[in-house]
C-alpha cells in the first residue's frame, strides 16, 4: 500500500482501523509542521516535541474527533496543535520563551524570513496555501502584523499586548481587526485570481 497517494481523509479513515502505516503517513506529511507551530509558540524544543507527540497521539487515539464535514484535516490539526501549544505555554506560567515578549524585530524576522525550506511531503499539499498566507502577512503594516502574531503565537490577549507594547488598548484592538480584515482580503483576492 502506497500511503503517500492517499488523501488526508482517507488516511484518517484508516486510522479508525488502527492502521499504523496511515498514521505514519500523516506524521510524515504534517509532523514537522505541527512541531514548527509548537516550537514557535512554546519556544523550547523539548516542550515542542512533547506537544507534537501529544497532538499526534490524540489523533491516533481519537480519529473520530476530526469531523470531515467541518473542513480540511490540516486545518483541524493545526488548530489542535496551536491550542495545545498555547495551553502548554500557559501551564508553564509563561516561563517559556514568552516570559519575555518577543520583540517586534524578532517577529519581523520571522515574517520577512525567506525560509522556504519545506519537506516535499508537506509542500505538495500546502505549498500554494503557505505562500499565499506568508505573502498576505507581508503586505500588512508591521504594527498590525506584530499584534496578530503576538496574539496567535504568543497567546496574549489584546490587553496583554497593549500592556507589553505600551500602546492604548483601543489601538491594539484596531490593529488586530484591520490586520485580519486586510489579510483576509488579500487571500480572497488571490483565491479569486486562481479560479
Amino acid at each position: 500500500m502506497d500511503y503517500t497517494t492517499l488523501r488526508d481523509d482517507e488516511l484518517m479513515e484508516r486510522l479508525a482501523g488502527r492502521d499504523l502505516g496511515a498514521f505514519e503517513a500523516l506524521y510524515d506529511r504534517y509532523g514537522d509542521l505541527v512541531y514548527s507551530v509548537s516550537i514557535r509558540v512554546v519556544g523550547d524544543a523539548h516542550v515542542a516535541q512533547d506537544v507534537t507527540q501529544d497532538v499526534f497521539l490524540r489523533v491516533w487515539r481519537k480519529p473520530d474527533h476530526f469531523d470531515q464535514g467541518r473542513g480540511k484535516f490540516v486545518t483541524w490539526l493545526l488548530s489542535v496543535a496551536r491550542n495545545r501549544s498555547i495551553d502548554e505555554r500557559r501551564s508553564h506560567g509563561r516561563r517559556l520563551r514568552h516570559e519575555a515578549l518577543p520583540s517586534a524585530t524578532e517577529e519581523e524576522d520571522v515574517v520577512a524570513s525567506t525560509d522556504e525550506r519545506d519537506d516535499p511531503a508537506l509542500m505538495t499539499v500546502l505549498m500554494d496555501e503557505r505562500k499565499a498566507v506568508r505573502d498576505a502577512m507581508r503586505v500588512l503594516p508591521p504594527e498590525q502584523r506584530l499584534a496578530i502574531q503576538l496574539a496567535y503565537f504568543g497567546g496574549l490577549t489584546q490587553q496583554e499586548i497593549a500592556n507589553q507594547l505600551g500602546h492604548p488598548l483601543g489601538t491594539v484592538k484596531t490593529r488586530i481587526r484591520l490586520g485580519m480584515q486586510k489579510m483576509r482580503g488579500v487571500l480572497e483576492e488571490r483565491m479569486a485570481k486562481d479560479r
Partner: protein
Amino acid sequence: MTLLQLDCIAARENIDAHAIGALDAAEVSALEAHLAGCADCARLADQARDGVVALALTTPMASGGQALKARVLASAAVLGDVNRGRRPSFWWQTVAAALLLVSLGGLSWGAFLQRRVDTLSARDSAVRADATAQAARLASVRDERDVVLSIASRPDLLRLEMTGTGAAPSSSGQYLWSSTEARGALVAENLPPLPEGKTYQLWAVYRDKWVSGGRFPVDAEGNGSVIVRPSGDAPGGKPLWFCVTVEPVPDGARHSDAMVLRSQ
C-alpha cells in the same frame, strides 16, 4: 432593534480577536453569549476561526527529526489497543502508562497517567498480602518499562508483528528491537493459560539454530513480556524469524514444538 444592531456591531469588532485567541475571559463570555443567539454573527465567527488557522502556515519550518518520529510511532504502537475496548491488565497499564508518562513529560495527559499509576500502585499494595514479592514484581515491571521506553524511543526501532498460531489464534505480540540499544522486547497479549509446570519462551530462529530470547509468565489475561538481550549463543547474521513456544519450567536443552506466536 437598535440594541441588537449595537450588539452585532460590537460582536463583529471582536470576532477576529476571538478567532486568534486575543480576548480575555470576560470578553469571550460576552461574545459567545451573543453568538449563541445570533446566527449571522456565529457564521462570521466560524469563517474567521477557520481562516485564522492559516496563520500557522506562516511559521518557519523546523524539523523534530527522526527521533521524534520514532518516539511518536512507538507510543502509538504501544497504545495500539486503546480504542479496541479491551480492558488492559495491570502490568500493561503500568508499562503503557509509565511509558507515556515519561514520553509526555509534564503534559496533562502525563499527569492523568501519573495519577493512574499512583492509583494502581496504591491498590496493588493494598490487595496483595506478600509485600516483598509485590515489591520485586513492581521493580521488575519498572525495569521492563524502562527498557521498553529506551528501545521504543530509538530512531532505529524495528517492530515485528507476531501472530497467533493455530494453537493460540487470538494471541498477538509485538517484538521491538533497537540495534543501537542492543536490546529488544517482546510484548505478548491474549496467550492461553499455561498448563501446570509450563512457561512461555521466546526464540530467535536462525538457519541452523534456535536461540532463546528469554522465558516469561503471563498474567490472568494472557499478557506477558520479556526483555531480550544479545546472546553469546547467537550465530552471525540476522534471525530468520521469531516465535514463542510453551516449554517445561525446568529448562530443557531444546525447544518444543508447541508454538503459540510467530513473526510474520
